[in-house]
């Protein structure tokens, strides 16, 4: 047989058997909260769906103000299964943000970010920001009215950042206004810069998870069983992924993603305009902040508040460290998390219904 020598040849060069031994040793803790372990892998799976469908869309998409809308229209109407690929890309993007949020909050509430997993958390927050930037940049690419105004507002918000705001705004827009230059830039970010960065951080994130293993909440530390990762856990992952493909196909078929009306730089913002759901809670907050807070413009206060919240998100493992030493701080952080989830949920619902 040729298989055996080939195996040996590869093994000598790639140490496949060492990897296989390590994979065999990998185990996943089993306890009542084990279900949350699946959401990281689910997010990763949806990311892969994004990469595949994104590459497919690249075959027809044309990134210019003159052609973008028409090329997406062409994908939706002329290209075989174009509607399916684009709708899956849009739906999967949204589901990915959702599973990412679930993954993040489950890690947060189980305080799995404590020593030695601080950097896993930090790289995770970087990935969250990258995914939101993916969403924001991709949203503009069809060049329709909603995406045009969403980009105007979003980049104007970046302009509010102290000191570097104006430079940042011009960098993002490729000029003073949202134009075709902005579209070209966003396209570059969306298909080159962000994927490269996401690949690096995803690599580190997953590597760190392998290095430290799954975190087990304190109360199950003494009494839990373990499951082999390969094949037991992976098979369960697979079932989740197959379900996800089914859900995506159903959503794409029943609710194909709309294209809307081509962007016009000289038309008023359409009534009822809203951002994607994961921006709704911030959008709704900006609506409620009065025009002036003391001597500051209201929007500046709102935006600085969200920037501060983002900075705190990064720093959480370093603020709430050693929970066994500071049990009170632990409780405060759980309460803060509950408040944050409630705030996001309530504001999102109000924003959705408004």
């Amino acid at each position, binding site marked *: 047989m040729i298989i055996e020598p080939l195996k040996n040849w590869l093994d000598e060069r790639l140490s496949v058997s060492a990897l296989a031994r390590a994979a065999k040793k990998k185990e996943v803790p089993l306890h009542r909260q084990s279900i949350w372990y699946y959401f990281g892998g689910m997010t990763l799976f949806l990311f892969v769906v994004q990469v595949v469908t994104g590459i497919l869309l690249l075959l027809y998409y044309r990134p210019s103000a003159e052609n973008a809308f028409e090329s997406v229209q062409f994908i939706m109407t002329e290209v075989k299964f174009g509607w399916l690929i684009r709708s899956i890309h849009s739906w999967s993007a949204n589901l990915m943000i959702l599973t990412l949020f679930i993954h993040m909050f489950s890690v947060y509430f189980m305080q799995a970010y404590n020593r030695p997993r601080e950097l896993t958390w930090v790289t995770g927050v970087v990935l969250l920001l990258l995914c939101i930037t993916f969403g924001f940049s991709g949203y503009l690419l069809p060049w329709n009215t909603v995406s045009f*105004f969403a980009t*105007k*507002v979003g*980049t*104007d*918000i970046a302009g509010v950042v102290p000191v570097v705001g104006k*430079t940042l705004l*011009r*960098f993002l*827009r*490729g*000029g003073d*206004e949202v134009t075709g*230059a902005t579209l070209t830039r966003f396209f570059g970010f969306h298909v080159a810069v962000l994927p490269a960065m996401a690949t690096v951080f995803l690599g580190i994130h997953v590597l760190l998870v392998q290095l430290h293993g799954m975190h087990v909440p304190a109360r199950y530390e003494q009494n839990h069983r373990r499951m082999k990762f390969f094949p037991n856990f992976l098979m369960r992952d697979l079932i989740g992924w197959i379900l996800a493909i089914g859900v995506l196909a159903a959503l794409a078929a029943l609710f194909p993603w709309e294209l809307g009306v081509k962007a016009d*730089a*000289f*038309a*008023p*913002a*359409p*009534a*009822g*305009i809203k951002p994607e759901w994961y921006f709704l809670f911030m*959008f709704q907050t*900006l*609506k409620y*902040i*009065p*025009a*002036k807070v003391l001597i500051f*413009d*209201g*929007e500046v206060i709102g935006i600085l508040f969200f920037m501060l919240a983002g900075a705190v998100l990064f720093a959480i493992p370093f603020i709430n460290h050693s929970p066994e030493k500071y049990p009170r701080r632990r409780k405060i952080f759980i309460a803060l998390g509950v408040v944050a989830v409630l705030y996001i949920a309530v504001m999102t619902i109000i924003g959705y219904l408004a």
Partner: protein
Amino acid sequence: MGSITSRRRFLDYLLGTSVVATLTAILYPIIRFMAPPHIVEAMQNSVVAAKLNELPPNSGKIFKFGSKPGLIVRTASGELKAFSAVCTHLDCIVQYSPEKKQIWCACHNGQYNLNGENIGGPPPRPLEQYPVNKRGDDIVVNRA
């Protein structure tokens, strides 16, 4: 011995500065490349915003004023008013709401009265107002 270490330090210094100089020579053009060039546009000081007959009382229209949108409003009483159509909140384009007889921004529900003053919602400043003249059938808007 002293001369050898000081010679080594000198070489380290040369090496270090040339590394920094090389990096600067590589990074500076990249950073300048990323910042979009300023495009000088001929300042347009007046524009025909609309024809009188296309603007019935209690209506408004967006017009192009240079590279920015403007809003021309004919009030219910027939008065003509022109504003910058760029919302002072977050850069959206406003519109005239005939029902409320107000200027309204759909993005975050900002409201302005017919003098361009911000009267509700998040906008922090009034809209810039432009002088309007009638020239025959043309409505001409000037930069203040």
